[in-house]
């Protein structure tokens, strides 16, 4: 696990950051996905979501995060994965993109993994059902492959 001190040290020292990267990992429609921990602000349990009529179909609605109103992205729909039975349930991962903050709906948050930078590779086209344009890269972990999302592509393009 990454302590804030570690994170700060890593951020300050490019060499250290190059050596290791940390990802928040989660399950979504059978895929094993991750987000760079530097982009994840917090993880929330299920929230009361206000739908936004006429919005893009992958926008579930809005929630209030301590008074700040942020959009909730249905990550399954965004990534083209099969829909879940319960659309609004699951956890929220609040992420920071270039221009905004948004919450990504995920099934469950697994863990935070620490990956040596050398294991982080550009995304091949076929590794996952997720369109490569939403991926930042992939990592081979012990038992499975972690597909790391490009938060900006997921949030900003839509």
């Amino acid at each position, binding site marked *: 696990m990454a302590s804030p001190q570690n994170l700060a040290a890593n951020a300050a020292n490019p060499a250290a950051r190059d050596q290791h990267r940390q990802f928040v990992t989660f399950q979504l429609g059978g895929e094993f996905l991750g987000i760079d921990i530097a982009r994840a602000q917090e993880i929330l349990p299920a929230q009361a979501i*206000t739908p*936004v009529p006429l919005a893009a179909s992958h926008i579930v609605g809005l929630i209030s995060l301590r008074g700040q109103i*942020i959009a909730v992205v249905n990550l399954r729909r965004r990534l083209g994965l099969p829909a879940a039975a319960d659309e609004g349930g699951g956890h929220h991962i609040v992420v920071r993109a270039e221009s905004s903050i948004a919450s990504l709906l995920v099934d469950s948050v697994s863990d935070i993994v620490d990956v040596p930078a050398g294991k982080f590779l550009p995304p091949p086209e076929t590794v996952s059902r997720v369109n490569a344009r939403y991926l930042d890269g992939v990592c081979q972990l012990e038992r499975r492959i972690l597909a790391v999302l490009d938060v900006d592509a997921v949030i900003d393009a839509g």
Partner: protein
Amino acid sequence: MAPSFSSSGLLDTLSAEVSLLREGDLGRLGRLITAVDAVRGQPEAPPLDAVRRLLAQLALSEGAAFETLRGLLAEAVAALPPSPAPGDASGPAPQPEPAPAPQPLESGGSGGAGARGPHAQPATAGGAVDRELFLEFVEESLSHLQSIELNILKLETEPGNRAIVDEIFRPFHTIKGVAGFLGLQLIHVVCHEMENLLDQARHGKLRISGAISDLVLETVDFLKSMIPMCRSAAEPTAALLPFKGRVQAMVERIVQANRQGLAAPAGSDPEPAAGSPPAADRPLGEILVGNRAATPEQVHQAVAAQRDQARPLGEILIAEQHVPVVEVAHALRQQQTSRAPHPQAAPAAAPSAGPAALAAEGGAAGSTENVRVRIALLDQLMTLAGELVLGRNQLLQKLAGVVDGVQGLNSILQHVDRVTSELQEAVMQTRMQPLGGLFSRFHRVVRDLARQLGKDIDLSIGGEGVELDKTLIEALTDPLTHLIRNCADHGIENPATRAALGKPAAGTIFLHAYHEGGKVHVKVGDDGAGVDLERVREKAIEANLVARDKAQTLSERETLRLLFTPGFSTARQVTGVSGRGVGMDVVLSNIERIGGSVEITTRPGQGTTFLLVLPLTLAIVPALVVSAGAQRFAIPQANLLELVHLDGEDASGAVLQVRGSEVFDLRGEMLPLLRLSRTFRLGEPPGGSGDGQPHADESLSIAVLTSGTKRFGLIVDQVFDTEEIVVKPLSTLLKNVGVYAGATLMGDGRVALILDMAGLARHAELALDDEAAHALAAKAAPVDAVEKQTLLLFNVHPSQQLAVPLSLISRLDTIRTSEIRPTVSGKVLPYRGQLLPLVCPEDHLSLVPPPQERERAHVLVFEIGRRTVGLVVTEIADAIETAVQLDDAAVAQKGFSGMAMVADRPTAFLDIYAVIETAYPHWFAREQEQRSRAIGAQPATILLVEDSAFYRTLEKNYLVEAGFQVVEAADGEEALDVLAQRPVNIVVTDIEMPRLNGFDLAARIRENKPYGHLPIVAVTSLSKDQERERGLKAGIDAYLIKLDREQLLAEIRRLLANKPAAA
């Protein structure tokens, strides 16, 4: 220093000193207080509290109050008991002046010894007084320092003005006095030296150069950092000790500046202040270090940064906040002394943070000490304050049961409540800015305009101090610019014209702001020609914005309102300045977007005034909370005209159907209606009929709204209260939806969306415009001689323009192509809880296929008989009213009714029925049978009476297609001629026609023996019960909505089956 006093010695001193006290002689007062304090601490001291208190009060009083207090003090001193302990008779050793200069300025105040009076009761006072005094000293000094800053800046524009020098001198003197009085030696010393320096200037012995101004400002900054230390500290004198080193340096610099200034008094500038060697050609960094403005490390860093950034060193140091602007300007001036004889003007050489920035900083300092804060941080504070309100509400709810049981809980909650509101208010306050900054920009604008237009224009500005929310000020920039351009261009006459009218050659544009009724009013106007109302009406008629006969009935206010209609311009010449027909509508919509309104008043020959009424802030707005489906929405009060609630029968009668759209008759005005739940596809409310038709038992809540010059009604499911809502920005992910102005948090913590009326109107615009135009047309019969149709222009691929008559379309919607689902019988779209059959025209007609990656598409919804079908198109280009020459031979392919030039492009007209029939042939299977039967028999002849050649062609096509013979007539008279010449089986007629309309035609047919029995079908675009009744009375058998082909054919067949054919 801690002189020791005896009480007897003190008594003598006091009686002597009291008579010598002069107003403003704070040094003397200070010494007395020190002396009294020293004695008070001793055992067996006389009761000195009253004396101490009076001395303190004297320090802060002036004029008559001073004299009164001095009298009281004299009495109090006289009342003191004689001391029992003689000896130690040293007087109150006065604190030595730290510098040799004579104490200047002994201002007024007559002497007069106080008479010895009776005993006074010693009052109880003590430390509290001290503390209060210090606090007061800090506040007063800070405001004095501010006045010094302002006056220094003033002096820059009026160098040598001794009155201003006096104004700078005096506050230093006052601070010095009080500081001495309070024993704040370090402050006293600095002020004293500065006082000496300025005293020379007051007497003309020294010129206040740029360098000296800088030194004064620097001293002010230094004192500003030092003085507030006295506020919180228990022991103020000790709190200042850390400043000792810097005070010495400062004093040294002031003394040196004084000396150098005196050495070179006559006009020429003194050497740089800091006692550094001549600065010319020395590097800036070195000068700054020499001036102790920057450390060598900071300069090294900045030099390193300079290599990367290619910015001037000074700029980097300022940006890094290592060095104040004034220091850099000062150093630059030093650098330039040898080159510039009058370095006062030298800051021009400073980097981008040059004189403007310097002045701006000085000006900003005019309020209080300023810190630059990011707006985002303020927004966050605002948000957090709002959260606090929520938290408090939840707390109140949870504690409601126990609040009475716990003593004091209620008052704690109330306290939290109050603090929260005040916090919110204070944060709001931080967003406010004076309008002056914005207003002053227009001097330049007006000057440029005047030159461009060859006019002479003055700008009069007022109310610069009126404050508005920063975001509002930003939003005001464009509209104000436009209005001012308008005044300059349209309002102000040419100098020659003005002269001929006896007006001053120079026109005036005014821009005034003031508060009224809790709102900010901004008046923009001119003393020019005024608006020519007649010309406005003419223009509006020309531009088809209003019918001619209606135009003449418009009031002045209504006429002026036309100026805000999109596409309106009265400029006789199109100039580079204005007159392109864009702008005024944008002005209105921009102002309305920020919750404001615009009114125009004009007087011929005297000018035009635009009054903008604006809310103080955008962050909190009053809004009406409504619901649609299960969701709540907020409607800004600024857009809300009224609320109409209709029950049962009222509701069903009030909503009319015009071409498939709903219209509400609001006191004679045809108001287009939108159903929020339908627009947002939220499902019909419980009790709604689901088919959009008003039910007898349905009650309706209509919010009558305004956006720009449009008015419309919004049907909502439920109306709640009006609330002050905190507007929060919408996520950038939702910016392109376009129908929301933001979001807010409701009392229960749920998010609610704020509706943007302009966006909502835009979203439904086509329907609205059509309905409004139609309602107007219905009122303003007879129809124009030139035949016009309203067409919807669209395309599947941008290279091919397609059209259908707008009246055929019952709805328009935007969809995502990903929502389209293929089925065995064709493509469908989940739509309002049902599956809408779709037709993609490119699948059935030879059209260029849509561009790849089409994510969104538009659906044109048609009601065909009992079926609803959607036509999927790529782009909706426009809805225009235009005259069309339809060439029906140009396209032979089934599915097209012809070609015409529309909006300068060849345009193919879709025969929507044929297209749908191609896509869903089984829908028409029965009709085919009927048709073949009809063809087998003698085909019936239809007399089609329709003044519009366009509609006539369309209708004729349907009828011929269905197997009928068609004879055409352009109006009732012509129809009667036809009837006289040949037999027909049925008459299909329009209602509104020139010469003889449909009602009269029907009446004439019924009167006439040979064909009095003919079935008559009337088709019209307006369905209103009274019209229908009138038609039935005239003898019309069926009354149909124009262009509903299925219904028309069914009705014709029914009538032909019932009635025998004509002979």
